[in-house]
């Protein structure tokens, strides 16, 4: 304990940038395919559910269903792109590709690597989230300036879910275990946290659970902004997301140290 864990933490405030740039260079080589892959899913949901269900549902909370859903899809895509980047891609770099092993032979620490991975996953969230927000704005379901307000929240959502994903890969023996996290944590959050249906529609016990889940805080910040309404409890929501970004970061770094530096 103590000294050893300190040695695994980030060495300084800029070492992580080298890791981010490594991932950016790798991404640039497959950028088009990656962007299409990341956007196809939320776009399908937005238009499929938005137009399909929208006709049946009518208006929700005073907005058209598709406008209501657009904000949910921005938050959801930020969540899923960070989660997938942190799980599958970062796990490959930690495990099969030995990228982390190579980096650990340099003056970077495990904490530097994890921080770089978080920042990179958040970058992917920003790409996916803003793309959906721009589509929504183009179609008139959101105002253009609202995207600027949403941007920091999208980034923070990405950091929080990347951080949680890091804890998952620090514990998972192989890829096969990711499916539990996906089906038991990520997918339920889409339905519990107000991304596709208002939280107020849920039984009260579920509403309590939703209140502590990170995606709820993300949706509660992004939706009013995109619909041009005042945002309530900004400090509370931001604090909650920050906690989800910071605590799992330290936890996962300690767990990675246990896993990789025995």
């Amino acid at each position: 304990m103590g000294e050893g864990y300190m040695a695994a933490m980030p060495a300084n405030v800029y070492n992580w940038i080298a890791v981010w740039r490594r991932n950016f260079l790798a991404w640039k080589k497959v950028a088009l395919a990656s962007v299409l892959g990341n956007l196809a899913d939320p776009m399908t949901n937005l238009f499929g559910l938005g137009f399909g269900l929208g006709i049946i549902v009518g208006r929700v909370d005073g907005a058209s269903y598709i406008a209501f859903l657009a904000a949910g899809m921005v938050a959801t895509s930020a969540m899923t792109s960070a989660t997938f980047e942190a799980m599958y891609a970062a796990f490959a770099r930690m495990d099969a590709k030995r990228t982390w092993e190579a980096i650990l032979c340099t003056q970077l620490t495990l904490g530097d690597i994890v921080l770089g991975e978080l920042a990179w996953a958040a970058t992917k969230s920003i790409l996916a989230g803003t793309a959906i927000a721009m589509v929504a704005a183009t179609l008139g379901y959101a105002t253009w300036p609202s995207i600027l307000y949403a941007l920091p929240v999208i980034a923070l959502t990405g950091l929080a879910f990347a951080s949680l994903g890091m804890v998952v890969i620090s514990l998972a023996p192989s890829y096969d275990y990711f499916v539990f996290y996906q089906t038991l944590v990520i997918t339920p959050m889409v339905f519990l946290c107000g991304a596709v249906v208002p939280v107020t529609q849920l039984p009260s016990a579920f509403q309590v659970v939703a209140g502590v889940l990170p995606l709820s805080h993300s949706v509660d910040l992004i939706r009013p902004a995109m619909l041009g309404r005042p945002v309530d409890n900004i400090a509370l929501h931001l604090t909650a997301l920050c906690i989800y970004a910071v605590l799992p970061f330290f936890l996962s770094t300690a767990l990675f140290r246990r896993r990789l530096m025995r």
Partner: protein
Amino acid sequence: MSIVAIDLNGVKKSYNDKIVVNGLSLAVATGECFGLLGPNGAGKSTIARMVLGMVRPDAGKITVLGETVPARARLARVRVGVVPQFDNLELEFTVRENLLVFGRYFSMSAREVESVVPSLLEFARLESKANARVAELSGGMKRRLTLARALINDPHLLIMDEPTTGLDPHGRHLIWERLRVLLARGKTILLTTHFMEEAERLCDRLCVLEKGRKIAEGKPHTLIDEQIGCDVIEIYGGNPQELSALIKPYARRVEVSGETLFCYAPDPEEVRVRLRGHAGLRLLQRPPNLEDVFLRLTGREMEK
């Protein structure tokens, strides 16, 4: 700069109940090539990883380039280059991009990396491959790129974990030649290997490991002289047990390993005379080498 590049004192490491490193002490002097020699599972890689601060010892003290490891391993690694046992290059990147990305991990700017890339590529004999994807390189080229990558921060100390395992003879000789150039430039090398020839050719000093324990240490030729000190006749064919009894009185020591009889003979001619009447034997007389030392010390052959 201290004379001692690496100092291990009473280092122990076990995984579960398996002891991997058992009270090991050794010192590597600046500018020398020090070999860790032993079969697979002797603890060589674990020691190399401990020196890098990637494995925590259960007991003992490790100092690398004046820094306490693992607590201050990061500061030591600033001046260390590593050639790992398994290639971990970026396969999708070009040769040049690999060096650029790795240089950034040492806080080098793109310009700083660019200024050293030509000499590194020349050193690794990869001048014509600068813009080739690593996935397209041969095994030997990948190893040489790994070596060039390890030099990007102009390290004082190189840690090489089985640098030639898996290479063909040509590739192996090329790496050996490159390592000799590095030693001539004053670099310190810690080398793990299970190739006796590699250790004999490159190492100023080496230690022979078995089950995490040091069983011998010294200069290769001193070890060979001390432990063997005479020519070796390898005898193939015939009944090893029978022949062994026949020549024992004329040999310093006789060892049966598989189907081969190793006869350590100060007077080889005498042994040849004794064997003259036996048909179907093939004799090979040669100077002693590290393999013989290993056989002597452990009573068994090194894994090939």
